[in-house]
């Protein structure tokens, strides 16, 4: 943004110099930092401690991680599978939908866009109850991971639609599409060959967001799961309620290990988009 205003020649988004620090703000930031990170650090160490009650003196161990893997290994696999399936559905259904909503100016499209975000605004518990009331009698579906997937899809789809929808609305993309059209490219070729590559960073960002949301989803999933379809957060709740603190902590560590690379990738993609937009502006 700043690069665009200052024009070519200025390095886009150069970090402005620090402004005078206010001690109060610094103090609150430090306190919030401790409040957020200290319990997390405590949890990570507790998962590696031989005995939490005796503290670090009793030594470190990977025993609890091993037990978590033996007891709950399946939940990690199921959660990863569900998250990937969610991403696949978001790609196949969400990306075209984002395009349709970006190009359509009709009232129906606006209304549909609003409706689509309702599963995000309405508490997950309500969505879960509705799904159980509607499909609870369909034994095969109710017992399968697909039932949880249905809940995750309606909850995550709006994020993909919004992210790519915003990208499809860019002016330069409209011009690009028009150019492809006048050159005689059919819709399928324009969409797959021109539009999708142009919004690729946003699609990747949407995929990572969908993945993270699905991996961490609990409010819906707790109601939708069965003893045979336990996801990572469901297993976490179970371990917190029935296992020793060390196992709960080690399991939390497993969750962090699964989520960390995805979050790191999300940040990297966000920078990539920022830089790409900045160079696009500078090039003009």
């Amino acid at each position, binding site marked *: 943004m700043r690069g665009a205003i200052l024009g070519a020649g200025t390095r886009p988004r150069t970090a402005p110099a620090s402004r005078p620090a206010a001690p109060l703000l610094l103090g609150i930031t430090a306190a919030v930092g401790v409040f957020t990170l200290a319990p997390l650090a405590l949890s990570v160490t507790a998962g590696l401690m031989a005995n939490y009650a005796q503290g670090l003196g009793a030594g470190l161990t990977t025993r609890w991680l091993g037990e978590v893997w033996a007891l709950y290994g399946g939940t990690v696999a199921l959660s990863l599978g569900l998250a990937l399936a969610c991403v696949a559905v978001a790609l196949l259904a969400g990306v075209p939908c984002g395009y349709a909503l970006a190009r359509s100016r009709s009232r129906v499209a606006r209304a549909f866009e609003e409706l689509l975000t309702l599963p995000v605004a309405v508490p997950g518990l309500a969505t879960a109850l*509705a799904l159980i009331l509607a499909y609870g009698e369909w034994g095969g579906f109710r017992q399968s991971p697909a039932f949880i997937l*249905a809940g995750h899809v309606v909850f995550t789809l709006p994020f993909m639609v919004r992210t790519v929808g915003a990208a499809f609305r860019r002016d330069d993309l409209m011009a690009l599409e028009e150019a492809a059209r006048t050159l005689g490219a059919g819709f399928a070729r324009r969409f797959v060959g021109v539009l999708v590559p142009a919004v690729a960073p946003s699609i990747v960002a949407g995929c990572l967001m969908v993945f993270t949301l699905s991996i961490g989803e609990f*409010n819906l999933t707790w109601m939708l799961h069965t003893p045979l379809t336990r996801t990572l957060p469901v297993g976490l709740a179970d371990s917190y309620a029935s296992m020793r603190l060390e196992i709960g902590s080690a399991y939390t560590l497993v969750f962090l290990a699964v989520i960390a690379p995805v979050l790191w990738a999300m940040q990297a993609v966000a920078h990539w988009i920022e830089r790409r937009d900045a160079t696009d502006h500078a090039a003009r």
Partner: protein
Amino acid sequence: MTPTLAACAAPAAALFCAFWLLPMVELASLPAGKGWQTYVAVLTEPRYLRSLIQTTALAAGVTLVSLALAAAVGLHLGRQRFPGRRLLLALLTLPLSFPGVIVGFLVILVGGRQGSFADLSEALGGGRITFAYGLTGLFLAYVYFSLPRAIASFTAVVERMEPDLEEAARSLGATGARIARDVWWPTLQPTALAAGAILFATAMGAFGTAFTLASRFEVLPITIYNEFTNYANFALAASLSLALGLLTWAVLLVAQRFGGGTVGAAA
């Protein structure tokens, strides 16, 4: 809408109708079978009304405290440049991706029966003090998962704030309080409204955290869960879910109308 665009939107529309809209219609019509008064049970039954009021008060308190703290953090991180700033921001927003159950567990780890706070208070001669299972624990847990979202929003908006404005105010002799009121507040205010609505809606619907804490302070999602699983009172659970859903949706809608933001985009 041209046929091509309609075809593009069709798969998403089909999924949405099959797995949200139609089930929701069924949920919404369920209480009617038990009589129309079932729809307003949340207002007429003292137990449910109490749960609703408690939940709303908790969500409102958590929202205000989180907004105030996060605004300070956002102002600091957005205005200062220091090594490790990005890393700190990433760490502070990390809990965004946590399921609520983890937040509940962290509070137990600190303030529960075997918690480090109990160890500390015992070492200081005050006995083993626990705060995880009551209102204090619930409040801290809700603030814990609310802060990251607000910090992310505030930091982003402060980073885009024009530094010249503050510079000018300062050189004209404005005090810190004047700058806060005349420069910072107008920048932060729209974000505070949008983020506040999302924090409130999230806190109203949060289930995993209260579930893990098995809190003595009952919030509406737990009431709904109990009605559904323990008492198999489906019509009532549906009615209470509707009330909760309508309330959160209305708050987001009002914030959107006044702030011009997008509902749920950051939820």
